[in-house]
């Protein structure tokens, strides 16, 4: 178990700044997921923690000790690579043992460790096979075993599930969560898939262009996003964001001037166009352009004068015609300023007067 601190970390590649200034604390024993679109600096951050990449400036601390000048092999971290990076010329056993041998662990101890690990990840029958004769899931397990056998303080996983098929991915997700619980080590996990991040992490760091947009627990990110980027990145379909100036019947009270208003598709309700919308919510009328049914949930795309938005209904599909009104309770609205920052002190207020001439 270890805590990781990144203090004022800057990374430049050939004069181009990839990470302007990063301050991040990864709590000990946490399952921290770095998530963001490709090129957001999440993998670079991970590689700097592992020691495979050196930061241009700033400090990286593992368990309070500065590791800036510590070799990757001596940082007590283990990494699982996206393509597994198993040594193709070695058997499964040799792959797992390699790190132990390099540390001078005696043979008997090694054999015991390898046996124990292989029982955990179900690899015992494959110990003497070469990696290329194993399936994707088995290779994944070898990569995990190779990392686990060293009993590292920190596990670093770089998109480890992206090479697996969808079904196996979901299965490995739960296995990884279980593994984290069992080992109690600090996990740092990189992915571009927000579903993966939400389902596995106990703390999620959303990154964009080398900067941390928000670092919080999954539900906190979902319920209380700091900014437009996080709001739109977490959740499927993403949060609907509409410009305030196209919604004349929506007013605000409190500090700040909202430029955008957002709401989650699952917080909106669809009413037939002819029905009277309730007064305590934002009503946006429009026509339905697509209907997606996933069994338990139904997603509608609505084209309105303020822009297109998604509405998600649960269990019972919307039965009305193509002309419909999406209604969102006022306390489910999120306001953002022109920079995309969340305005938490702002509350919605109806402005009934212009409504008649407005969206409808």
């Amino acid at each position, binding site marked *: 178990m270890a805590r990781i601190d990144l203090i004022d970390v800057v990374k430049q590649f050939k004069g181009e700044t990839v990470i302007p200034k990063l301050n991040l604390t990864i709590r000990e024993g946490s399952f921290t997921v770095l998530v963001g679109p490709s090129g957001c600096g999440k993998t670079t951050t991970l590689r700097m923690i*592992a*020691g*495979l990449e050196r930061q241009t400036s700033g400090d990286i601390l593992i368990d309070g000790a500065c590791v800036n000048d510590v*070799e*990757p*092999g*001596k940082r007590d*971290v*283990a*990494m699982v*690579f*996206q*393509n*597994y*990076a*198993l*040594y*193709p*010329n*070695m058997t499964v056993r040799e792959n797992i043992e*390699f*790190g132990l041998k*390099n*540390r001078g662990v005696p043979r008997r101890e090694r054999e015991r460790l390898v046996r124990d690990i292989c029982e955990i990840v179900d690899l015992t029958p494959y110990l003497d096979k*070469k990696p*290329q004769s194993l399936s994707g899931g088995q*290779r994944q397990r070898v990569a995990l075993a*190779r990392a686990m056998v*060293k009993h590292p303080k920190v596990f670093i996983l770089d998109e480890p599930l992206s*090479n697996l098929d969808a079904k196996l991915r979901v299965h490995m997700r739960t296995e990884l969560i279980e593994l984290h619980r069992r080992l109690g080590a600090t996990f740092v996990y990189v992915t571009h898939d927000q579903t993966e991040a939400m389902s596995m992490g106990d703390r999620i760091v959303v990154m964009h262009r080398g900067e941390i947009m928000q670092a919080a627990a999954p539900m906190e990110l979902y319920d209380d996003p700091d900014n437009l980027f996080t709001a739109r990145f977490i959740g499927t379909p993403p949060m609907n964001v509409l410009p305030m100036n196209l919604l004349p019947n929506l007013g605000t009270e409190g500090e700040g001037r909202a430029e955008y208003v957002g709401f989650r598709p699952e917080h909106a309700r669809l009413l037939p166009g002819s029905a009277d919308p309730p007064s305590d919510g934002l009503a946006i009328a429009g026509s339905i352009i697509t209907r997606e049914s996933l069994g338990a949930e139904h997603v509608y795309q609505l084209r309105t004068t303020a822009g297109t938005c998604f509405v998600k209904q649960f269990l019972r599909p919307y039965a009305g015609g193509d002309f419909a009104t999406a209604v969102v309770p006022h306390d489910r609205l999120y306001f953002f300023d022109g920079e995309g920052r969340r305005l938490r002190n702002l509350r919605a207020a109806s402005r009934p007067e212009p409504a008649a001439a407005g969206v409808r």
Partner: protein
Amino acid sequence: MAPSRADARPVFATGRGAGRPAAARFRAALDAALRIANIVCMLLLVCVFALPFAWMISTSLKTLPETMRFPPDWIPDRPVWSNYADAWNSGPFPKYFLNSLIVSSGILVLQFLTIIPAAYAFARFRFPGRGLLFGLVMATLMIPPQLIFLPVYLMLSDWKLLNTHFALILPFASSAFGIFLLRQSFLQTAGELIEAARLDNAPEWKIMIRIMAPLARPVLATFALFSFISHWNDYFWPLVMTTNESARTLPIGIAKIRETEGTATWNVLMAANVMLAVPVLLAFFAAQRHIIRAFVYSGIK
């Protein structure tokens, strides 16, 4: 013969779809014709390489008058196996053979010891003067041995190494060609493997020997084959560097058969040549098996 086979293809093809357009039938016929032309070309190529070899074996089993007969026969009237014994007994052949083996394998071992670290350094490290040094190594490829044999001869003579195996081994202890070939292969190895090894606390030499070198097995096998054959067959260098039997190699010994007899005894000479070629063939078959196996191993995923 070729056109008739080409015709056969569309007939076969109509069984699948009788109404196929003429263009498709023409394409199929063209494909077949091209395939046959390809096979014919390959057969011709095989002949170019195999016929001299067959001729060597055939001649090695003839009597001397038979070798002069015109038109020549491919199959000798009666195979004369004693040619081989004559060749073997015409000089200290076991000695030549051993010398050849020591020299060729000595060179190979030293080359492996030098080119693997050199190629690894050129491929993996950034150090001042890397480009210049690599350029120098490449430049040596363009220097023919005939140009430098005199100074090397004088140097070895100063060191009292003439007529020893060292004189035949040391000048070839490294190979610019090998460094180049291996460096290319190292450059192509996935960076993640090296990173994984670094995280596994592997020292640099271990990464080189346990991970990079095994992954370069096809290249190493190919290089070993080239090196072994060229030094096994080398005539010029051993001729210059040896003046007695102590370090002479097989090609020199065989050439001496021609000198010692008044007229060239082609049959005995060819028998000696067959004996010269057999180890090379064995080396080839051994390396070939490794090359294929190494190719199977080299996949990353």
